[in-house]
């Protein structure tokens, strides 16, 4: 895999934090745990790297200490580079800047970094879409089509109760001719994945124009307001993805990884998802363990019964306990003889012996970070 020196990847680590507020109370969207051993930011970072993009800026807003912890120097993604590499871009990066209100505002705040990156093109991504996408053909299509913006979308279903969606109408020429945000009816649609390709000069222009009119939303002020003014190429992504815009989404996106075909689509041998290593030992299964259909990260010690679960690193489940249809985040401890169903635990939650916890599939019960039951 060669590197593409001409492209800068920018990831918004804090966008849509409110979508899964429970999990983002103490961290950014990007540092939310996912899939047993990952954080959501691992997906956009790995996608950039696997697409040959080796200059990456991570734009944060607040609560970014856990994110800093996770990405460090970027070594795990091969982004600890002398040329390019990973740059964490907190707010207040220059005098007079504030916590941003939208992506254009955020980009304006870090424009100095973008300006000085040796790249003609910029790829933008959020952290709320879990996918394994190759940007190379998309960048090529962008350049070929002479578009101002290339917006990546997937054919999906919009559920109005889940909120927060950008939906594209697409003309016969493949360009976007209509944009709607959170329409009041559910339907099959062209669902925006909040990933865009633009040239640096074009991005510079729209940021400057928007700033001068006190506009800051890429979605509302550019895509929606100026659909007719710009050439917005719609690029259909046909691979596997999960978009996380609620706790229920988060729950089902994790459990979706129990299906072999979904894992095969997300964890590719030649485009792996990289993450921070934690030097955990293998999983230890006890004498009376009983496991069916579970995704289990290293460092777990399981002595009970587990069915249809995603267990993150270092989870412990005591003897006689039964855990079903649940997601237990890093270092959660379940005592002995517990019964747990449709539960999401945050890091280091502790469930004492003989507790019974039950949520429902649509509204899983959530235990916060370091909660003790």
């Amino acid at each position, binding site marked *: 895999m060669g590197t593409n020196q001409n492209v800068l990847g920018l990831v918004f680590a804090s966008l849509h934090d409110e979508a899964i507020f429970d999990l983002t109370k103490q961290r950014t969207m990007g540092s939310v745990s996912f899939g*047993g051993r990952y954080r959501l930011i691992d997906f956009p970072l790995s996608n950039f790297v696997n697409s040959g993009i080796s200059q990456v800026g991570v734009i944060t807003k607040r609560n970014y200490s856990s994110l800093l912890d996770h990405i460090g120097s970027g*070594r795990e993604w091969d982004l600890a580079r002398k040329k390019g590499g990973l740059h964490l871009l907190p707010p207040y990066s220059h005098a007079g800047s504030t916590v941003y209100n939208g992506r254009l505002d955020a980009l304006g705040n870090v424009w100095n970094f973008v300006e000085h990156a040796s790249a003609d093109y910029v790829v933008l991504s959020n952290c709320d879409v879990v996918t394994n996408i190759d940007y190379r053909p998309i960048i090529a299509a962008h350049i070929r089509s002479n578009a101002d913006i290339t917006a990546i979308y997937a054919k999906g279903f919009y559920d109005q109760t889940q909120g927060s969606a950008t939906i594209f109408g697409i003309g016969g020429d493949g360009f976007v001719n209509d944009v709607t945000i959170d329409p009041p009816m559910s339907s099959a649609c062209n669902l925006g994945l909040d990933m865009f390709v633009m040239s640096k000069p074009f991005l510079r222009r729209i940021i400057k124009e928007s700033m001068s009119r006190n506009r800051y939303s890429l979605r509302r002020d550019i895509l929606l307001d100026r659909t007719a003014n710009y050439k917005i190429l719609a690029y259909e992504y046909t691979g596997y993805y999960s978009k996380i815009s609620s706790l229920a989404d988060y729950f089902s996106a994790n459990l979706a990884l129990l299906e072999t075909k979904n894992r095969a689509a997300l964890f590719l041998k030649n485009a792996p998802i990289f993450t921070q290593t934690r030097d955990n*030992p293998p999983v230890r299964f006890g004498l009376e363990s009983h496991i069916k259909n579970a995704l289990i990260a290293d460092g777990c010690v399981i002595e009970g019964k587990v069915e249809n679960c995603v267990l993150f690193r270092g989870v412990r489940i005591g003897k006689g306990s039964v855990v079903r249809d649940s997601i237990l985040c890093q270092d959660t401890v379940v005592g002995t003889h517990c019964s747990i169903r449709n539960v999401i635990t945050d890091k280091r939650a502790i469930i004492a012996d003989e507790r019974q916890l039950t949520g429902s599939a649509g509204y899983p019960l959530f235990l916060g970070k370091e909660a003790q039951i």
Partner: protein
Amino acid sequence: MYIKKEVVAMLLAGGQGSRLYALTHDMAKPAVPFGGKYRLIDFPLSNCTNSGIDTVGVLTQYQPLVLNDYIGNGQPWDLDKMNGGVHVLPPYETSAGASWYEGTANAIYQNISFIERYDPEYVVVLGGDHIYKMDYSKMVDFHKEHGADLTIAVLDVPKAEASRMGIMTCDEEMHIIEFTEKPKEPKSTLASMGIYVFTWSKLKKYLIENEYANTGSKDFGKDIIPAMLNNGEKLYAYTFEGYWKDVGTLGSLWDANMDLLSPNETLDLYDKEWRIYSRHNNMPPQYIGPSAEVENSMITEGSVINGKVDFSVIFGGVTIEEGATVKYSIVMPGTVIKAGAVVEYAIVGEDCVIDKNAHIGRSPEEYPNRDEWGIAVVGHNIIVSESKTVAPKDIIADNI
């Protein structure tokens, strides 16, 4: 410019490990996989890091490719340092000619200039084929307190085992009076663990003298230690308590892996204060399928289990298909065990394919005469075809 280090560790990793047969055909013994996600060398390297020793020379010779790749820049063990860190030291050619390492002492002798860069007070000499967790800094403290020239770590072993090891006879202050390699009538049960702390100035002197004495062996046990004892140098024994296992044979390698599954296990891999580090393969979490039956085992990331696994250590990226059975066995990274295959009392190497209905190993209970029984071994990158069997004690080094 190098900054002075009080302690430098030298890790002898050149051994061929001929008693591990097929498992060391194409890799040095310290590179042999162990315990689900480790290689043997992870134990001494992690012990160094956890003991605060940040300068380590790894002496390689036999089949170094896998080992060199594995050690890389030393980052997994925190040994990628601007000053110090891990250095792989193969034999090299000088203006006087090229020579292989002729013995353990000669290997260190040939790297005197590496050690001298750091101007150390003490040199810790380690092997690469033992499983244990040990704080070397406590042993160095002991060495300093006793004003010793050489401190040898010893383990109190059962009398029956003593005649197979290097045995120390000590006075009450643990001052070593006598050292005998594999004595027929052991006078003591304190066995050498092959872990030495030398005062560097002394070691250097003896290495140079030994090199010119031309004993033919150039070995620590055979030459350096006896010479130091004869000359009345101060040799002390440092008693180690805890889990320690020599994994130099197939049987002991299997035993040591099975020890990890014992409830009385004293080697705690889950202790966060003394982690064993290893190079990571970046694989997704393991998946245990709906038809799987998993009990009393260790299984690692990247594995997909749909069969039956009992009393086994399964490494990363292993596939065990529905209808396959693995029990009392060790399955190394990347191996595929297909439907209907049975693997029992066996070690299966890296990247093997055990095809449908093949049968590797047998339970000792089927052998009234236990001498006829032993674990079955399949080497690395081997295909065992459909319905083939590998009998107990068999060691397979080619496809069958």
